[in-house]
């Protein structure tokens, strides 16, 4: 029975996804609102199931006879469940208005969204390369479909095509990598690969290195690091706004969940082999991402481009892991920080455009603070957080990552990252300047806009968490929960569960 508790969240999401699929056959019977409601309730239920074993440190491989050790359930995966389910739930809530005002969102969309979540959750559990591939593809294909959902925008064809072709292409690389790893180790199970690494003279196993490098490329592609960042702008641009939010935050976290597990749990001994590659990748990711972000006129594209820069920061924590295990916590913490701020900012833009048809350039934001002060204030919070201004969780994330990077000896990289941060102040603050310092233009204001909606509350919730996560409640109020320390401890407990043998 106790084993069942652990797989319950995944089962819930899967059943719900299938059920929604059947529901969507009767499109005219259910409104979009119903779908959102059902999905949200299911996600909340799944979240509750996640919290049952939450907090304790455990690591089990349930139902050995059925799963043959390909799935592993531990505090680490549980922690990522919270982020993934939470991210999806917030995507739904923030998009509530957007979904209702775009005719092309039909019932099956929500089924696909839950399938994507299912894939991502399995990815967090995967202890075997092929399982991870399947999970990754379940998630990816769901995302491909969602990217192409915007039937009113001609750019969707380019977006979906680019993403699909490149994604499949890189998927083939992954499979080739798995084949090579299998050739070297006679297994695709990560635990056994780990055993192989610890027992064999690795200079005899070049295939293992080549295979794993190919797998690394997939990772870099999915998180849009240089040189695989080409697809990001067009795909994010063509996708419906809310899906962009989902991809930038939640999907990225899922990718990290698997690769962090592999790196820390099984490949720790040979991780340093890739240092020089990742070093170059970080430098170029930061430089290119920054350059792209500075040159954008559309807010959506700027956010997309800046997500590349954030990938650079994440990789900075990632490379530090080789020298210093503590850096893993910083990566996870940064993921949380980025999830909150990215969902918030993308979500807010989608909230604004849900009833209007503007392209959302910087200019469209002019004077928003006078028309809708609360939305502007929340946007400001998210921009601060993305730019890493103190008092927001984004600052804590950066502080954490940079400290660990310096601790690991990557001082030059840390300075480069700080310079990138400095430049990022320009493109994030530009938006704030637009909102506050200019008279209203009125493009983003619609008449029947009332701000008492689910999406507003969801965004406000994110904004509050973003601030509380930054200053913590240690100051003034001394509330023990909701503390940054608690959050840091949670990341530590979750990562330590990877090492339970």
């Amino acid at each position, binding site marked *: 029975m106790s084993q069942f508790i652990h797989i319950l969240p995944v089962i819930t999401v899967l059943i719900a996804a299938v059920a929604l699929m059947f529901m969507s056959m009767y499109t005219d019977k259910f409104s979009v609102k119903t779908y959102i409601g059902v999905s949200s309730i299911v996600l909340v239920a799944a979240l509750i199931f996640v919290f049952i074993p939450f907090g304790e440190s455990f690591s089990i491989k349930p139902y050995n006879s059925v799963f043959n050790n390909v799935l592993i359930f531990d505090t680490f995966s549980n922690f990522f469940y919270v982020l993934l389910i939470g991210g999806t739930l917030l995507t739904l809530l923030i998009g509530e208005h957007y979904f209702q005002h775009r005719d092309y969102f039909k019932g099956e969309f929500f089924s696909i969204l839950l399938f994507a979540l299912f894939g991502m959750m399995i990815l967090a559990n995967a202890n075997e390369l092929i399982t991870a591939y399947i999970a990754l593809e379940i998630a990816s294909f769901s995302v491909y479909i969602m990217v192409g959902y915007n039937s009113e925008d001609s750019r969707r064809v380019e977006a979906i095509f680019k993403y699909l072709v490149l994604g499949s292409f890189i998927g083939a690389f992954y499979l080739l990598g798995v084949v090579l790893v299998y050739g070297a180790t006679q297994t695709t199970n990560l635990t056994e690969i780990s055993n192989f690494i610890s027992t064999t003279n690795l200079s005899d196993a070049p295939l293992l290195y080549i295979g794993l490098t190919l797998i690394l490329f997939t990772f870099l592609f999915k998180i849009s690091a240089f040189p695989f960042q080409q697809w990001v702008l067009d795909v994010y641009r063509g996708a419906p706004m809310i899906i962009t939010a989902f991809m930038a935050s939640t999907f990225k976290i899922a990718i990290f969940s698997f690769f962090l597990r592999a790196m820390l749990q099984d490949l720790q001994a040979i991780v340093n082999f890739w240092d020089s590659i990742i070093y170059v990748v970080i430098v170029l990711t930061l430089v290119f991402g920054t350059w792209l972000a500075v040159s954008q006129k559309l807010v959506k594209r700027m956010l997309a481009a800046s997500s590349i820069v954030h990938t650079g920061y994440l990789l900075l924590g990632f490379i530090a892991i080789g020298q210093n295990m503590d850096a893993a916590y910083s990566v996870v913490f940064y993921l949380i920080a980025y999830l909150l701020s990215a969902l918030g900012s993308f979500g807010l833009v989608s909230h604004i455009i849900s009833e209007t048809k503007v392209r959302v350039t910087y200019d469209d934001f002019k004077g928003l603070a006078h028309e809708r002060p609360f939305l502007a204030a929340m946007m400001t919070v998210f921009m601060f957080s993305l730019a890493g201004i103190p008092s927001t969780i984004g600052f804590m994330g950066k502080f954490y990552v940079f400290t660990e990077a310096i601790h690991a000896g990557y001082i030059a990289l840390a300075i480069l990252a700080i310079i990138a941060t400095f430049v990022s102040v320009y493109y994030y603050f530009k938006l704030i300047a637009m909102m506050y310092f200019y008279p209203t233009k009125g493009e983003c204001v619609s008449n029947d806009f009332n701000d008492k909606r689910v999406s507003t509350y969801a965004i406000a919730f994110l904004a509050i968490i973003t601030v509380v996560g930054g200053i913590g409640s*240690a100051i003034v109020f001394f509330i023990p929960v909701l503390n940054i320390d608690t959050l840091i401890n949670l990341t530590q407990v979750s990562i330590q569960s990877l090492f339970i043998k």
Partner: protein
Amino acid sequence: MSADILSFIIFLPAIVGFGLMITTKHVETVRNIAFLTTTVILALVLKIYIDFEPSSGMQFVTNVPWIGSYGINYYIGVDGFSLTILMMIAILIPTAYLLLWEGRTKGYWINMLLVQTGVTGALLSLDVILFYFFWEVMLLPVFLMIGIYGFGEKVFTTIKVTVYTMLGSLLMFVAILYLGVSYFNEFGQWSFQYDSLTQITTLSYNEKIWLFLAFLSAFAIKIPIFPLHTWIMETYKNAPTGAVFLLSSIMAKLGVYAIVRFMIPIFPDIYVEFSTWFVFIGLFGLIYFGVAALMQDDIKRMFAYSSASHLSFIAAGIFSLNEFGINGALYLIIAHAIATGALFLLVGIIHDETGFKTIKDLGGLAKQSPIFTTIFAIMLFANVGLPGTNGFVSELLIIFGIYEFNHTLGYISALTVIIGASYMLWMFQRAILVKRTSGEDLKFRDLKIKEILGLTPWIILVFLMGIYPEIFIDKFEPTVTHYLNDILQIGATK
């Protein structure tokens, strides 16, 4: 409770500010409550000032874990140094409210409140991360104030200010992280408290120089020290009066304060080694900005340069390595805050009333507004260091300090006082005393009773500090002696 009084002082304005933001729309209510808040703070600071016993150590310390896993603490306290500046901030801000009283919006007042939290927090923080946190927080409201309420090319100005200060801050941030990691490597645990960081012994000479410069970049931009001053021209010209007042009177002083608080204890040897350079740069800035001020026609810009010139003088005093210089610099921080703050606010009134910003548009104000002229003159004389005013005491002390540091530089610094006197008096003559050359007479009101009341404590301070400096110097002297004897180990000259 007595220990938490500092936290209360720090956070009260922010809490009130956020409360006002969501509750009321009435500008008058917001302003009155905000003003009341600042007077409450003034009362509390007075209580601290009286309770404070002159000694070298920190008092009213609160130290609780904030982010425990990284050894970041909510660590605040006050010593003679910060106490003096705390007092200054607490007095200046409410009076500034009185002078800015009419015609502002709700956001203006809320931003003023938020700045006060940031400034006081930065002043009292003894943990560098906490300090960095407040350091950035105090910038953001000013950024909004300039952007929303500024004049001319305000957006460009805002971006320029932000870019400059952020650049400095981020360099400092790297240095802070580097120090933290060094501490961790040496002692096996994290800590960002300034007194922990002073114990680091593993840094090489080169590392120290880089870190020193990184810290200095943040503070020198804020002060501003030549050649990192280029942001002040547009800012002081285009920013609203309140923001100019805050930047010049208060935030610039925090730059100086931070040098003393963090850089001297953490890098004493580098500080001593490079002090000659900085005294030199300070004096150069003093002359350079002084000459630039002479040539200005825009009255706000003239004050901007004048302010920069005096701040360079303060910087020179800080680096003069003896008690005269440091005491004098600290004294000038206060004196300059009062004089420049008052002058900026008075010029703000001129600008609000007449719309003129250049000296040649003005003239003959003395006739229509005798009280205004009198107060303006007092502040002006304090600024140029007329005997009997606080400016005189501080400039004298600094000149003594620099003389003791190096005789030649001492003579030079003594002579530079003339520059300050000439641009100030020349401006006073053209803008206030002499009749206007073109057009009909200016319509200009005299100060209202509220404004006079607001300025009275400043005038009292100007003379009290000028005539009887001991009561103030006694409070911070032990701290300065501690810095020289224990940290720099060069012995205080008594």
